[in-house]
């Protein structure tokens, strides 16, 4: 274990020196701040529109029936979650790729293995080092989120909101590590490193963007701008009644979405942050009692990644390919 920790420390330091990692880190941090700013500006614009509508109605002598927009601070993280889905996954791919590429390019794995280090220590060490690095990045993001929400809206996140935020970031870590493991596996498995990176991007494209996009565009409610059921003046119960008649279609759509780890991550994170209206102001336990299934899926993808990496590392040629 001690050897694995040594490798983990080396991995952490190497990544901190990588120019590309720093570029991606600054991109993520910059986007965190700007996405919160844009979301809060959108909320303020809604509030101004509401106030002017109320004023107009009052001048006309009518009683306003519109509800005032209510700020749920964690919902301001919608943009950030999208960036973690897309750019976070790329960050994972880059870390996984460079973690293997540097050893293959410099042929240092052979050297390490001349020392009393086991192959599994190498995988464990690299995994721990990169997980620690990502956890640090996500904690930095959490701090930035807390500060941005406080400075932009004046709201201080406390108690259950902080717990929800931290749980979302823990899930984000697991999600990004799935892509780290994918890139690490492919870089070990394939002879050409640049080809492995391109295949990673092709898989990333399919999992992160295409599958969720297909599910999203097949959603009947998304066929009309603003929502089909809203255009029919339907409430949630009526919507469910109608959709019950199209069970097979909905199941197929759901199946397409569930192939993607990104969709599971999105579903549970959006529920925890209250981005999905029905989960606003609900307790952490209530959300988990409904969305635990998505967390289990993320864990399964992670487990598959671990197994694949451990299996490939014990194959002799995987380490010596270049």
């Amino acid at each position: 274990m001690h050897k694995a920790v040594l490798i983990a420390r080396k991995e952490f330091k190497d990544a901190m020196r990588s120019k590309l990692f720093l570029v991606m880190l600054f991109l993520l941090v910059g986007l965190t701040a700007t996405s919160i700013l844009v979301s809060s500006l959108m909320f303020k614009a809604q509030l101004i529109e509401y106030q002017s509508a109320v004023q107009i109605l009052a001048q006309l002598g009518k009683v306003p029936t519109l509800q005032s927009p209510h700020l749920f601070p964690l919902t301001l993280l919608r943009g950030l979650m999208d960036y973690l889905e897309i750019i976070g996954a790329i960050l994972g791919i880059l870390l996984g790729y460079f973690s293997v590429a540097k050893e293959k390019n410099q042929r240092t794995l052979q050297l390490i293995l001349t020392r009393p280090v086991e192959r599994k220590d190498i995988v464990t060490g690299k995994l721990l080092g990169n997980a620690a690095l990502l956890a640090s990045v996500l904690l930095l993001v959490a701090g930035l989120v807390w500060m941005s929400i406080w400075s932009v809206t004046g709201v201080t996140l406390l108690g259950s909101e902080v717990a929800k935020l931290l749980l979302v970031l823990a899930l984000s870590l697991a999600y990004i590590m799935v892509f780290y493991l994918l890139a690490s596996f492919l870089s070990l498995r394939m002879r050409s490193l640049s080809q492995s990176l391109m295949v990673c991007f092709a898989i990333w494209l399919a999992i992160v963007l295409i599958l969720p996009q297909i599910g999203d565009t097949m959603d009947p409610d998304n066929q009309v701008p603003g929502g089909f059921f809203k255009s029919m003046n339907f409430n949630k119960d009526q919507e469910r009644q109608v959709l019950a008649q199209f069970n097979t279609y909905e199941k197929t759509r759901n199946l397409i979405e569930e192939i993607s780890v990104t969709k599971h991550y999105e579903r549970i994170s959006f529920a925890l942050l209250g981005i999905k209206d029905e989960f606003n102001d609900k307790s952490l336990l209530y959300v988990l009692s409904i969305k635990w299934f998505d967390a289990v899926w993320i864990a399964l993808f992670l487990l598959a990644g671990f197994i694949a990496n451990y299996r490939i590392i014990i194959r002799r040629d995987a380490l010596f390919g270049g």
Partner: protein
Amino acid sequence: MHSRVIAHNEVMSLLRERTVLLLLVIFLFMTFLSAYIGWSSHHTIQQIYQASMEQLQIQGKEVPRAPFADATLLSLLKNMIIYIVLIGSLLAITIGHDAGMRERKAGVVKILFSRPISKTEFLMGKIAGLTIVLGMTMLLAAGVSIVSSTLLANITAHDVIMLLVFYGFSLLYLLGFALLGLSFSLVEENDAMALLIPVIIWLSLTFVLPEFTSALYPTGSLNPTTSQMAISHGTILQAISDVVKPFSIAEHYKEMGSYLLEVQGSKLSLGEILHLQALNLAAVVSWLLICLLGCFAAMRRFDTASGDLHA
């Protein structure tokens, strides 16, 4: 003459690349699938509308008009706009990267330029090769779209023309990304960095800028039906949007693409679309020209004596 040989070699080499072929197959498969998804979703939503209508009639409520009554055959292919922006762009970056890196990785740059060939001829050959490969891809995609649409409904001559124009317009957009990939692969010392920088630029153009210009969340911009949110005039967001909008190339492409595929719900003639969308077209052409200039600048910096990657 040299340019023609290089272009020919480029086309043959790219078509032998396994990663390029993988992305090409994914792209063409999604082209076929987009017609089916569009048709299937439309068919289902019509049935859902019927079911909703019956429920409203039982309750004695007024039935709103079907919101998609004016949907045309071409609008069923609306997902293609998104697949061009996602898969097409990544394919273009990949082939641009491959084109720029091929000689450098093989270590033949010195040998190549010891022959009577100028940098301009070399670059022109590369650009011609990329244009041919991307042009063939778009032509194939147009063929797939036409065949799949014919299988699902009656396609008219107007629809075929609009599809060809749409794929021609997409070629302009994608060629920009291919040239971007080519530029960085000529100047970057690291193979992975040369691929990643254009990918980061693509990410910014596709997901980040639309959030500033149209208040669209990154994943929200992947739904071709989502209308752009109107940003209140006089707000800070409007000011940001005004500044950023000209650079939001993906949005210019999507806007004009949605007119060509009649996603807006109105069947316009090509002349009317070109008139209405002149600014978006100009933005995409400018994007291509800027990338072309970038390519020439990269080629000027390219050192033929030490251009090999492992020299």
